[in-house]
């Protein structure tokens, strides 16, 4: 135990002892807080409905395969970014280049990161340039819940974009229920410092918050590679990050709006390879400036017509620079990319009877990409979507069907000009039957991901002849809910099968020295996802158990003649993974332990030795909040990777081992 850690523990003990004396007074507060939290759960719908007297009965969600972390459970996890929370979901694989600033993307049921749509309050965070969202950029502190839907969310009134990805992650922004200001300060391992401020209000039906954060970390964590052929120890270099994030949201009834700004500079560390010294580090650095403003309004007319409009503007800037003397191995470039995105959607749902809804939505998105690359030219894309959907909910029988039409048109003079326009219909259908808390469901969804602007036009790599990457998913599942006074149990299990055709991959060109994007390969995946959640509360005690299990076999189905690869597991896909989280709370003292296991994964097909070893990750979090009248002081100690496991998501990109975070919170 390091000296610093010992100090932290001493501090916690001291505070814990001191606070025991005043614990009685806190009990009342805690009770109130619990009630508040209960209200907050699902408050987005309940609250807003009251305000505008929209009394929509939300569809029974069990028809969709979904997992949600919300409220107290979400805050109890030892997580700071959205990516950290999602790794506890069944069927999710995290791709993380390690380090503090490493890109974090998720892959759901092996469809590929670009098939995962990420939505904030129902509006997609888009990146036409590369199609993925770095989840490390989104903080949990302003989120009420994080949900994963494997096909469609299936609200009565949702935009066409929400039907357009293979899996959807919904981030639900917090709607404040009271006025408060809080300040958080954090010190963590590897010279990590963070300061955060949150101010929120709830005034005459208007709710809103401003949340700001500044974080800096050297990220110079130690790593070790120990095998038959090496014993490498070192510290990660060029792994630092500094970022600032400011966001604000305003809500009133059916109106919601959100404004977001993120500014960061980070090092992009490379793989750990054999070197004789630390002289050359292949340094590359990245700067990001992301801004978006979005608003949404939903209302109900004549009791039978639901109506929603969404609008968003996003502006993203990225600079990548390799002009450093430590970098002798790559071209020295300093490139700037600017992307703008304007989006609008209109949705309407008609419910002639309480058991039937028919809805339609039209989405329009305009994207403009500019970059100072050689031989590159502005690229413009217009993306339009129309969806027709219906839902039926009658005596426990639920049926949902939708047909989505997408239309993409690009304009550019880059390379050989724009790709041909793309038009396509894709269907999805879901069926479920519920009997006494037990739901049986089945669904099928076809969807594709359109080649991104990078895939099509990026200098020296882009290929305008790419076809969309097509997925077909089939799912059968059971879900059961049970609750009794102090107990609540939720469990679900789904078996699934999916197929990805025309995968878009970057391959070296046949017999030349350049790489290019190509449609190559087909994969077939079968799996089982299961989750079990239990809650127990008695007086001032509260216990939660959250667990998820994934078993899947994801195989290559490209070329039957290639015996070495055909029907063999594809790289980076573990057969088994599981996450178990236990939360125990007494009054305002809370202890969380999370365990994550990811089985072994191949990283090349050439040698059985080319595997990433399985890893076990145990995170622990202890927090205590002390209330003094209206003010509160909180202290939280987190220990991540308690076992100091050395592991990787990508070969030679080591993840940090054991690390600590100590957070102090003041609130009024």
């Amino acid at each position, binding site marked *: 135990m390091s000296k610093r850690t010992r100090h932290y523990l001493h501090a916690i003990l001291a505070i814990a002892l001191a606070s025991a004396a005043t614990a009685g007074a806190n009990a009342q507060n805690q009770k109130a807080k619990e009630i508040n939290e209960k209200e907050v759960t699902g408050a987005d719908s309940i609250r807003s409905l009251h305000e505008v007297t929209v009394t929509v009965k939300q569809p029974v969600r069990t028809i969709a395969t979904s997992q949600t972390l919300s409220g107290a459970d979400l805050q109890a996890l030892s997580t700071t970014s959205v990516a950290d929370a999602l790794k506890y979901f069944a069927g999710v694989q995290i791709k993380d280049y390690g380090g503090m600033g490493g890109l974090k993307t998720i892959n759901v049921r092996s469809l590929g990161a670009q098939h995962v749509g990420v939505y904030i309050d129902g509006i997609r965070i888009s990146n036409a340039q590369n199609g993925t969202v770095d989840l490390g950029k989104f903080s949990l502190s302003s989120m009420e819940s994080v949900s994963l839907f494997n096909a469609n969310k299936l609200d009565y009134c949702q935009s066409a974009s929400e039907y357009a990805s293979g899996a959807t992650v919904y981030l639900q922004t917090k709607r404040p229920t009271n006025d408060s200001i809080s300040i958080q300060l954090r010190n963590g391992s590897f010279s990590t410092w963070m300061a955060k401020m949150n101010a929120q209000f709830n005034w005459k039906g208007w709710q809103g918050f401003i949340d700001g954060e500044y974080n800096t970390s050297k990220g110079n964590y130690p790593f070790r590679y120990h095998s038959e052929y090496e014993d490498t120890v070192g510290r990660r270099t060029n792994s630092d990050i500094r970022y600032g994030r400011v966001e604000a949201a305003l809500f009133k009834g059916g109106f919601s709006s959100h404004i977001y700004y993120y500014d960061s500079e980070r090092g992009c560390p490379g793989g750990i*390879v*054999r*070197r004789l010294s630390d002289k050359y580090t292949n340094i590359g650095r990245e700067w990001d400036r992301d801004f978006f403003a979005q608003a949404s309004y939903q209302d109900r007319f004549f009791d039978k017509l639901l109506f929603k409009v969404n609008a968003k503007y996003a502006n993203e800037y990225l600079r990548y620079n390799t002009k450093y003397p430590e970098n*002798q191995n790559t071209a020295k470039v300093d490139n700037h990319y600017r992307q703008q995105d304007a989006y609008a959607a209109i949705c309407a749902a008609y419910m002639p009877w309480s058991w039937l809804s028919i809805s339609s939505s039209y989405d329009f998105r305009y994207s403009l990409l500019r970059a100072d690359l050689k031989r590159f030219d502005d690229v413009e894309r217009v993306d339009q979507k129309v969806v027709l959907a219906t839902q039926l909910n009658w005596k426990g029988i639920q049926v949902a069907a939708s047909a989505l039409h997408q239309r993409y048109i690009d304009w550019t003079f880059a390379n*050989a000009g724009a790709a041909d326009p793309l038009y396509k219909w894709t269907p999805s259908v879901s069926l479920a039957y519920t009997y006494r808390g037990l739901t049986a469901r089945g669904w099928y969804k076809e969807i594709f991901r359109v080649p991104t602007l990078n895939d099509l036009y990026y200098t020296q790599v882009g290929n305008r002849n790419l076809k969309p990457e097509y997925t077909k998913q089939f799912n059968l599942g059971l879900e059961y809910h049970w609750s009794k006074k102090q107990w609540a149990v939720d469990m679900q299990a789904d078996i699934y099968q999916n197929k990805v055709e025309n995968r878009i991959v970057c391959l070296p*060109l046949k017999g030349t020295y350049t790489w*290019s994007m190509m449609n190559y390969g087909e994969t077939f995946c079968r799996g089982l996802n299961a989750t079990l959640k239990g809650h127990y509360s008695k007086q001032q005690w509260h216990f939660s158990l959250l667990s998820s299990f994934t078993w899947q076999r994801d195989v290559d189905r490209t070329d039957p003649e290639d015996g070495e690869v055909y029907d063999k597991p594809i790289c980076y896909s573990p057969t088994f993974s599981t996450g178990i989280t236990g939360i125990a709370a007494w009054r305002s003292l809370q202890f969380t332990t999370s365990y994550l296991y990811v089985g072994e994964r191949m990283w090349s097909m050439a040698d059985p030795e080319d595997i990433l070893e399985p890893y076990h990750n145990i995170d622990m979090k202890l927090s205590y909040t002390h209330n003094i009248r209206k003010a509160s002081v909180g202290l939280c100690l987190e220990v991540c990777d308690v076992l100091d496991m050395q592991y990787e998501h990508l*070969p*030679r990109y080591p993840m940090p081992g054991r690390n600590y975070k100590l957070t102090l919170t003041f609130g009024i």
Partner: protein
Amino acid sequence: MKKHLTFLVMLAMHIYNNVCAQEKIIILNEGLWQSDNGRISYFEDGKVVSNQWFRDKNGYKLGDTPNDIIQVNDNLIAIDVNWSNIIQFIRPDGTAVAATEGVPNNRKMCTDGKYVYVSSYGHECETANGMVYFEKGFVAKIDINSFKVVATCEVGYEPEGIALYKGHLFIANSGGYSGVGEDHDYETTVSIVDASTLTLKKNVDTGIPNLYGKMSQSGRYLCINSPGDYFEIPACGIIFDCEKALNGEDCFVVFDYPATYNTTTLDGKFLAIGSGFSFMTGGYEFSYLTIDPKTMMETHGESGIEHTLPGTMMDDIMGMTQPYGIYVNPYTGYMYATDAGYYTGSGDLYQWSPEGTLLGTHKLYINPGHFLALPPSGHMTGIETVTHAPGSSPSFIYDLQGRRYDNESQLKSGTIYIKDGRKMLFNSQP
């Protein structure tokens, strides 16, 4: 008794012939970039002995993206490990001798038996006399007694292929980083550098951009590839005459086919697999060439190219997923090519007889592309006995048995000799 003795002698000879390997090929598997999995395969007489030969022999890994391998003398082989910034020296049995980090972003090598000359895309070099910095790329001269860089010479941007002829280095400049965004254009020149003083003599402008990839040598001739600019300028190949270049005469002919992967045959010709690609059309053009450089130079490119490879080699290569290298064993004439497949699986080695009959395919590791044949057992390179520094006269010629020849009139055309520490195929020239 006599009968028995004869039998024993015959048995001993039989065993000797079987034990003494004739085909000994070292192949570099580049591995996957930044995965630290560059590996050496060792192939001997129809069998892959190991696909992790370096690890087996040394207990540690070679590094990331090995890019070239040459034999320096009977006891020394040099391997440049590009992304690791290492030049690794090994003995012919695979055991490591030394490694140097002085030349970052190293590309290709040649040797005179005393020094190793390395081309580099980097902009700095650690020499015995301190750090040296360059605006463009450079060539470094490594002394194999100290394994340190003793001299450097700046050439063009991103210098690639390097060859030694009559005491001069011929370096093909690519300027390849132009294609990925650097502020200069593609290079079109071949730099000629005096090997003894390591000073730039002159640049020969070929007018062809991006002289990139493997460059083979047959005596005075070089076979240089240009992938073009991948847009308007198509890929092509160049036959370069070092002798004429030194004499200041017109010294190269350009032909319309790329020589993406190329090698030298026992009779002094070049074999090449070419693949041209243009982003404008998204189309490939493949070519399979046997090039007679002498005829090419004499006829100014009018003739000297045949669109074929020996035996079934062309058909076999056309059936590959991704050809990644071609090689002829300079001692035996056996021919090899590799198929990298789809890059995440293991590559394949194809072996042909000197006549072009496919003898077999063998599993290697990821992205196998660079070859070195070791002399058959009992044969020496003869390089150890080279006493004269390159460029100084007289430069003696040795055959593979180590016999010394004082002048070229004693040599047989189409046979391998060692001159200035460099293997060469002798052609009786006019």
